[in-house]
């Protein structure tokens, strides 16, 4: 197998942490007294969640109060921020991902800031060399399968090619990349894998009776086995099987679903200081805080993604169940930005017409 399934252990991260060991809270770039008493606004998407007390820790540390404003999903948040560029809704944005990044950069949403905490963040996540955005977390979009539906006669598909194999005809449900974030990520995975050949691949998937839904909810709860549908393979997240365990009722020991790691596409979420902020120093302190262990260790169980900082340790529940593909598919944000509309248009012609 080309990609090794890596169940992330605390040990691995602890080792990484030891290599890059440094203070858990990097010093702020500005003197604290200048920002004490300020209130700044963090603009984010609806999936943003923190444990009670986490943002208060930032206030205790810096004297800055954080107000959170959510503005729809990632697409809505980016579109909203582009409309309000120059007179932003807040001071820092958190949650723009690598699929929307180029659009945000083209609109000059952000002011550059190189956080000292970036020393703890792998270069593979630092996708903007100009530091207009700072990576905060990452996760993977992958095909999930319903374990019970596969056995020796029908083994679990291992690769993207397998999904197009007639043996797996009528089993896959995907989301429309024109209307869904995981749908777009999966299309990007196939483009990363097959290059120019992606169009032929999707013709094969179409011949193999792929079902397309508008969004994740109707794929997972409408067509996938988990929600009572009859399709045993769905495009979801690498963190979906652990959610099936953590939110099982009645409780279960193992997830009923698994992840096909050869299909995964890496999504990285970033934070950036919104151009036009009147609280630049406080905004810098907040970006630093988002990379601090306090925030980074709070991320996994709230948002089901991995912390970007290697000094953050992972909660056991996460470690036990979440798989981390070693070599997921990726594409440069500039490529995605330049081509995504053309790609999704072409995809629509091939798959839906």
């Amino acid at each position, binding site marked *: 197998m080309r990609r090794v399934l890596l169940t992330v252990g605390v040990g691995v991260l602890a080792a990484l942490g030891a290599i890059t060991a440094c203070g858990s809270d990097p010093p702020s770039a500005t003197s604290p007294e200048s920002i004490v008493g300020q209130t700044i606004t963090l603009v984010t998407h609806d999936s943003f969640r923190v444990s009670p007390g986490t943002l208060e820790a930032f206030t205790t540390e810096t004297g800055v109060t954080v107000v959170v404003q959510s503005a729809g999903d990632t697409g809505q948040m980016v579109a909203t921020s582009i*409309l309000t560029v120059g007179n932003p809704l807040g001071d820092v944005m958190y949650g723009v991902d690598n699929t929307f990044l180029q659009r945000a950069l083209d609109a000059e949403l952000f002011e550059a800031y190189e956080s000292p905490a970036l020393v703890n963040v792998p270069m593979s996540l630092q996708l903007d060399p100009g530091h207009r955005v700072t990576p905060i977390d990452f996760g993977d979009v992958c095909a999930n399968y319903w374990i019970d539906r596969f056995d020796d006669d029908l083994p679990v598909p291992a690769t993207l090619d397998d999904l197009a194999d007639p043996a797996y005809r009528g089993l896959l449900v995907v989301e429309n990349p024109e*209307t869904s974030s995981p749908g777009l990520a999966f299309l990007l995975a196939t483009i990363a894998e097959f290059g120019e050949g992606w169009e032929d691949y999707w013709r094969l998937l179409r011949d193999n009776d792929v079902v397309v839904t508008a969004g994740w909810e109707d794929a997972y709860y409408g067509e996938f086995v988990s929600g009572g549908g009859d399709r045993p393979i769905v495009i979801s997240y690498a963190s979906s099987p652990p959610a099936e365990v953590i939110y*099982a009722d009645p409780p279960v020991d193992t997830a009923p679903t698994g992840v096909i790691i050869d299909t995964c596409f890496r999504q990285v979420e970033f934070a950036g200081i919104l151009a036009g902020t009147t609280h630049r120093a406080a905004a810098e302190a907040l970006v630093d805080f988002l990379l601090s262990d306090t925030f980074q260790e709070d991320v996994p169980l709230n948002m089901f993604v991995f912390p970007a900082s290697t000094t953050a340790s992972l909660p056991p529940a996460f470690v036990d169940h979440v798989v981390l593909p070693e070599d997921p598919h990726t594409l440069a944000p500039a490529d995605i930005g330049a081509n995504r509309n053309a790609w999704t248009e072409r995809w629509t012609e091939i798959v839906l017409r």
Partner: protein
Amino acid sequence: MVAVVLPAAFLGVFFLYPVAAIVGRGLTGDGLDRLVGLHASASFRNVAWFTLWQAVVSTVLTVLVALPGAHLLARYRFRGRAVLRALTTVPFVLPTVVVGSAFAALFDRFGLDDGTFRLQHTVWAIIVAHVFFNVAVVLRTVGAFWEGLDPAVEEQARVLGAGPWRTFWSVTLPRLWPAVAAAASIVFLFCTTSFGVILILGGPTRATLETEIWRHAVWRGDLASATALAVVQLVAVVAMVVVANRLQRRRAIGGRPSARRPQRPTKRLLGANLALLATVLLLPVAVLVERSLAVGDGYSLRHYGALADRVNLLPVSALVALRNSLLFAVVATALALVVGGLASLVVVHGRGSVSRIFDLGLMLPLGVSAVTLGFGMLIALDDPPLDLRTSRWLVPVAHALVGIPFVMRTLVPTLRSIDDRLREAAAVLGASPTRVFREIDLPIAGRAVAVGAAFAFAISLGEFGATSFLPRQPDRLTAPLALFRLLGTPGDLLRGQAMALAVLLMLLTAACVLVIESRGRFGSGVVRGDL
């Protein structure tokens, strides 16, 4: 004067100005070229045609399904009538994805979805869902108006030898027409701007102007194309409302409220009507109730108990979200009643052009996409003294904009149907105009006000689209948004809680509607006694 200024200011600041701002922004870029180029685009013609025909078919079917029920509610008294009426409004608060899966489960259960015929991802799924969501609009607005019509006219027709159908066509329908036109125009606008139904139930190949505006603005980052489509939508909605208002005015016939004691229905009539209503409304609801109780292989109230605790996926507990929704709904309903009530008076009593402009203008928010309004508010209301972008008032204001047309569409036909001789008689007897309004209009219109308020309330409780576009602090999460978030992560626990929350939201809606309407009935009961 206040009656003119207040609604005009409300509409101007919170609707016309934002929409003008976003349209202006979009058109100054490439939007104008896109707009001019639209007529040559085959895909645009397909989208426009599909938007129109699915809305027309949905509206006609909704009216046909609802009229028998409206008759039952208007003309007969039976046990459970008030509860049945209140229950008809609950579809408003149900998220599409939940209703869609309930319908799918129903088809599954009755063996209809066995592979030969599949409802999901067909145009019929869209139409069935539109009937389900909108049947209450016709049922209630027409029903409330019908109740006010004197049945003696029908009885005279019957005495003169007309059969029941002939009586309905020649006597009842012409008199009902203003209310039917009013209700149908609301349903039509709802169907042209419906979003989740098209995307989720219609499948990926179907698109309307509404879904295309969203796709271009949010997914493609193409404000110019989105604006071009938004302009088309706006023009189409204005044209449609103008026509509907004409129809409504031309056919308005003065009448007097009935002093007759309502009849009790025959068993067969009641049974047939209830069966129809139950099929359309209650079966999907029953599926949700069953799912909210299912735990493993048995049943339990566990999911309901868990709603008080915060799941770590939500910023607040589901119960807090429900409380937020309730507060927003109270404010939105109050706003809709004040603005819609005053505007109705202007429409009925105002001079020709002012009356027509109000009648048109306050309907428009129903027909404009949530993206247009949401984005418009963001770029228009961003400077002092109107820096309201992050204000807690913005969500109830957006909800009220949708509620106002309901208040007006129930109130205007009723106010118009009040016989002017009643007012004149009161004036002759020395009543001041205010007194005439208080003693004549208000009591007779009480039922209509209550129905309008109930709709404004239910719509606010269930509103998703515009709410999701407005910036919010996470702890002001509303129940529909919480539901959506719960369904956004796998796990039976979350799904069970989402279903329990949906059921609570329905119960809350039904209970509030019941309370609102019992107050309305009190108002109209007084005048009945006096007549």
